């Protein structure tokens, strides 16, 4: 029995040696030539396996050999006793030698270890690796030493390995290639410092940056090059290239771009879309690339019949038709098909069929250019989730990741819901990478979901500045953190300072309030505005608010809010009730003086916003509808009672040649309730935001008795706009300039505040006033104000800038015009 066990051990030992290609030399009393297939193991008596012996094993019991019998040779810096210690104490068994060898190699200190047997002693001959004294980079300007040092595997005070240095050289080349330098040369050099130490120097010749000169599309008919360049992420080199890195050739980016193009076409009905080739050619002078995408668009398809077939008896297809996101005749859209699969899956699992699988089956009708889609619902394999393991979250809390899953441990596995969680996790922006994989669980019908995430910095510091005709120059500094303490909460502090305004704000948002997918937050704010050409008074507002955001569907959001704030107006000549005495007559409208004299007013207002966002792109929309309804109700405590309703709707429609038509309509109404009057500050003040070509607060009721013809604001408004935006063909697309032509019309009217005050003498009003006598003479007419004009819109590297010039077509005599308007601002 004992012998048999020995034999088995030996075989294991033998295999290890061959596998690891470690040289073992044998010296025996009777010299036997040992072939590579043989291994010899020591002891005083040796046992030998001979290939000629047809695998027969001669085993004899090894007698004890002590570790003091180990002779170390070839070591220069590593102590012999250190090397000996790797073989442990006590008798040297084959297993121990085996372990010792492996451990010596694992130290990385030796390039070679050789074991032999001499006269009953074990001779260990080692060759030491050289040690890196320091690592230096020479000739690198564009990429810093620290970046390169972080990329390479060789470390100071580590051992020098030729293979690692070769790999490091490749990595450095790769880093340069990613930043667009393709003819970089890296030469690793070692400088002997004596004592087995070397300096490792990477000599780098960076070469020139090779940018992308042009991006071409071949075979595109339905979409212009201009539009397609927007779809992809690669850009061409221009004078702003120092700000970006997307203008260099990167094979990975080109691959990602192909995917973006494919998705874009599939979303727009081109189901047969193919990319025939995507090439990057170096110009003959070697200074720039030209990237060419050759595509085959195929015809545009529309949805033919769309239906659901259910193979689950208890779930009739009729119940699932509501989950369809498309209808016959609509342009085919692969994204809608995906969303429908998700919707139906959720619908079916609500009926208790958690394992159901939904497969879309498309059938092309080439003649009619229609795709008939049938969603087939079937029972899938019964697999349960045993555990959801979240890994790599060094910052973000476990539950912040876990709550994005609609399924939990013990639930039925459903790929659609897992994909949904993965998409949500990516969209959070907390992670650099998100990967969900499956591992088999403890039983065949169990799986373990592994969620690998990598946290990324989520803090943001921004400085923004801007200028607009109404607000003058304004600058803002803000600090934000969207994954506060890894809890997924959003915190932001900001302060702004401007020509006519300053303020500070703090806000906090919890995206999962009380464990529900409901965003809740609060804000604290302070804002001060000064008198300008358009308003004669200063204001100071301090307040706080709480808000809730409730996503109802992907597009519809309901937001609820409550705000409590105090506002105080003042005039240059005084504030509080003292203004009656300190302000010269006619300095401001009596309506404003009255408002100032009332001192601070407290407003307590509760409201909601219902919004629908169907835009294709929030920043630069080209198609879709955005609509918003807001209502605010003030008077739950506080000094002010009003009900305010506003609505805004914008519709974008793509025309030929990348022109975009935008139609907009807006309206609002505010009125007081109870016995209270509406305060002047709660009126609507409108200007170029309603009809361009007018000054800020330039439209609507005015006090013609005051010296400056103060605007009083109105209680009702409406406005419509039509705008055509078009690319400026003579400028390259990268400049980011667009032109626009617009027509605006609208009106603001109905000042409902008092026109006379007990302590103020009435005067006879001039012509054009609605009231004959009073302290305030209101010019107020609901006539249509309209204008036409042109704009220049620039998506500049400093943020979006907009210049408008408008000619007023119709106005009231008391309105104030302003033909030119400029606004813009950004975050740096």
């Amino acid at each position, binding site marked *: 029995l004992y012998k048999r066990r020995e034999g088995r051990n030996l075989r294991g030992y033998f295999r290890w040696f061959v596998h690891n290609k470690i040289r073992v030399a044998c010296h025996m009393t009777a010299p036997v030539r040992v072939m590579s297939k043989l291994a010899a193991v020591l002891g005083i008596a040796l046992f030998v396996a001979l290939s000629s012996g047809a695998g027969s094993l001669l085993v004899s019991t090894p007698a004890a050999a002590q570790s003091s019998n180990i002779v170390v040779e070839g070591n220069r810096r590593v102590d012999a006793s250190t090397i000996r210690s790797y073989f442990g104490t006590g008798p040297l068994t084959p297993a121990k030698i085996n372990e010792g060898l492996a451990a010596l190699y694992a130290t990385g*200190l030796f390039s070679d270890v050789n074991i032999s047997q001499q006269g009953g002693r074990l001779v260990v001959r080692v060759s030491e690796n050289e040690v890196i004294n320091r690592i230096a980079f020479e000739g690198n300007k564009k990429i810093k030493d620290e970046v390169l040092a972080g990329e390479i595997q060789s470390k100071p005070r580590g051992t020098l390995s030729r293979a690692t240095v070769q790999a490091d050289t490749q990595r450095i080349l790769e880093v340069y290639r990613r930043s667009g330098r393709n003819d970089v040369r890296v030469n690793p050099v070692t400088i002997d410092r004596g004592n087995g130490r070397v300096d490792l120097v990477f000599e780098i010749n960076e070469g020139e940056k090779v940018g992308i000169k042009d991006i071409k599309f071949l075979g595109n008919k339905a979409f212009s090059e201009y539009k397609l360049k927007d779809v992809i992420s690669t850009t061409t080199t221009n004078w702003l290239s120092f700000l970006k890195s997307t203008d260099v050739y990167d094979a990975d980016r080109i691959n990602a771009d192909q995917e973006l193009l494919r998705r874009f076409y599939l979303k727009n009905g081109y189901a047969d879309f193919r990319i025939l080739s995507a090439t990057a050619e170096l110009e003959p002078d070697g200074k720039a690339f030209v990237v060419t995408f050759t595509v085959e668009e195929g015809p545009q398809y529309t949805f033919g019949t769309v239906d659901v077939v259910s193979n689950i008896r208890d779930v009739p297809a009729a119940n699932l038709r509501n989950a369809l996101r498309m209808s016959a005749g609509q342009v085919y859209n692969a994204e809608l098909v995906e969303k429908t699969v998700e919707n139906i899956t959720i619908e079916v699992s609500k009926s208790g069929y958690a394992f159901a699988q939904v497969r879309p089956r498309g059938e092309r009708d080439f003649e009619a250019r229609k795709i008939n889609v049938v969603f087939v619902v079937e029972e899938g394999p019964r697999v349960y989730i045993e555990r959801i393991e979240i890994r790599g979250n060094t910052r973000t809390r476990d539950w912040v990741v*876990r709550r994005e899953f609609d399924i939990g441990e013990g639930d039925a596995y459903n790929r659609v819901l897992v994909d949904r969680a993965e998409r949500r996790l990516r969209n959070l922006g907390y992670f650099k990478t998100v990967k969900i994989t499956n591992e088999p669980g403890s039983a065949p019908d169990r799986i373990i979901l592994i969620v690998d995430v990598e946290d990324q910095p989520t803090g943001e510091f921004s400085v923004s500045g801007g200028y607009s005709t109404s607000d003058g120059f304004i600058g803002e500094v803000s600090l934000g953190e969207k994954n506060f303490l*890894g809890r997924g909460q959003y915190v932001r502090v900001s302060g702004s300072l401007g020509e006519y305004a300053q303020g500070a704000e703090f806000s906090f948002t919890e995206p999962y309030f009380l464990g529900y997918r409901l965003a809740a937050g609060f804000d604290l704010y302070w804002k001060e505005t000064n008198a300008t050409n358009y308003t004669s008074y200063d204001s100071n507002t301090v307040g706080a608010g709480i808000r809730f955001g409730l996503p109802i569907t992907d597009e519809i959001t309901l937001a609820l809010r409550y705000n409590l704030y105090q506002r105080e107006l003042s005039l240059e000549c005084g504030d509080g009730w003292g203004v009656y005495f300190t302000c010269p007559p006619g300095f401001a409208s009596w309506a404003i003086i009255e408002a100032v004299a009332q001192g601070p007013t407290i407003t307590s207002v509760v409201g909601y916003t219902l919004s629908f966002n169907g835009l294709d792109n929030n920043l630069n929309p080209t198609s879709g509808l955005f609509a918003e309804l807001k209502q605010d109700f003030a008077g739950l405590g506080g000094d002010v009672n009003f009900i305010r309703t506003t609505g805004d709707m914008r519709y974008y429609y793509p025309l030929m040649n990348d022109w975009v038509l935008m139609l907009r309509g807006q309206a609002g109404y505010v009125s007081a309730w109870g016995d209270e009057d509406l305060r002047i500050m709660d009126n609507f003040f409108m200007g170029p935001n309603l009809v361009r070509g007018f000054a800020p607060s330039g439209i609507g009721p005015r006090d013609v008795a005051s010296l400056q013809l103060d605007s009083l604001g109105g209680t009702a408004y409406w406005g419509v706009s039509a705008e055509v935006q078009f690319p400026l063909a003579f400028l390259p697309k990268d400049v980011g300039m667009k032109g626009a032509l617009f027509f605006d019309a609208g009106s603001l009217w109905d000042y409902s505040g008092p026109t006379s005050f007990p302590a103020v003498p009435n005067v006879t009003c001039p012509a054009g006033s609605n009231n004959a006598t009073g302290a305030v003479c209101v010019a107020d007419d609901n006539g249509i104000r309209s204008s036409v004009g042109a704009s220049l819109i620039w998506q500049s590297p400093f943020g979006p800038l907009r210049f408008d010039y408008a000619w007023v077509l119709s106005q009231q005599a008391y309105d104030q015009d302003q033909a030119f308007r400029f606004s813009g601002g950004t975050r740096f």
Partner: protein
Amino acid sequence: CATKDEILPPDEPAEKIYNEGLTLMNRGDLTAAAKRFEDLDRTHPYSEWARKALLMDTYVYYQAGRYDEAIAAGKRYMALHPGSQDAPYASYLVASAYYDNIPDVTRDQRATRQALDALDEVIRKYPGTEYAAAARKKVEVARDQLAGKEMMIGRYYLENRNYTGAINRFKVVVTQYQTTRQVEEALFRLTEAYMALGIISEAQTAAAVLGYNFPDSSWYKDAYRLVQQGGGEPKENKGSWISQAFKKLGIG
């Protein structure tokens, strides 16, 4: 980019550098001390002083809270001088560095598992040393941490009324981390989850096992009340997995 300090500093006596390192360390300038010990390692490699310096380097980095560096230095020490008398200490320092890196239960527990591996190594390689004894205590805490992670996720599912998910996590605590202090709460939570599912006999067993093993526990009082509200008494069902899990270890 590499022009400065291209030439190695002229060889100073090893003892002088070592003492400078010690002085800096005592003064609290840990970064400078670490650098000095590293200089020694560089200028007098593999001397006895270098060995000492490497150990000090590990210690200084550990003290400074730079655990990655401490782990790297400690591992290097163990590779170079595994037979030296300070090897257990270096090994313990490495394990402690991992241990101090353990995050709270809401984060990834990779560091905890690394710490457990390193602590196990100290116990396995240097049994009978004071470091093995200290490591054993840390192992307890680290295991408690892993159990705490299971509890955290279990409670999450309990709050979300996913009782099967919750029970699975508490089951792991009861079966794999039975010696940690989390087991009391796990048994109570099992009572809670089984009561919510209406599996009264399992709830009674969990409460009974809890009462038997931790009669004075406040968790037991809560569990007792809960079972009583359901119209029963804690009663051990010997066939239950909870009962079995405790029998295996001879506790229940």
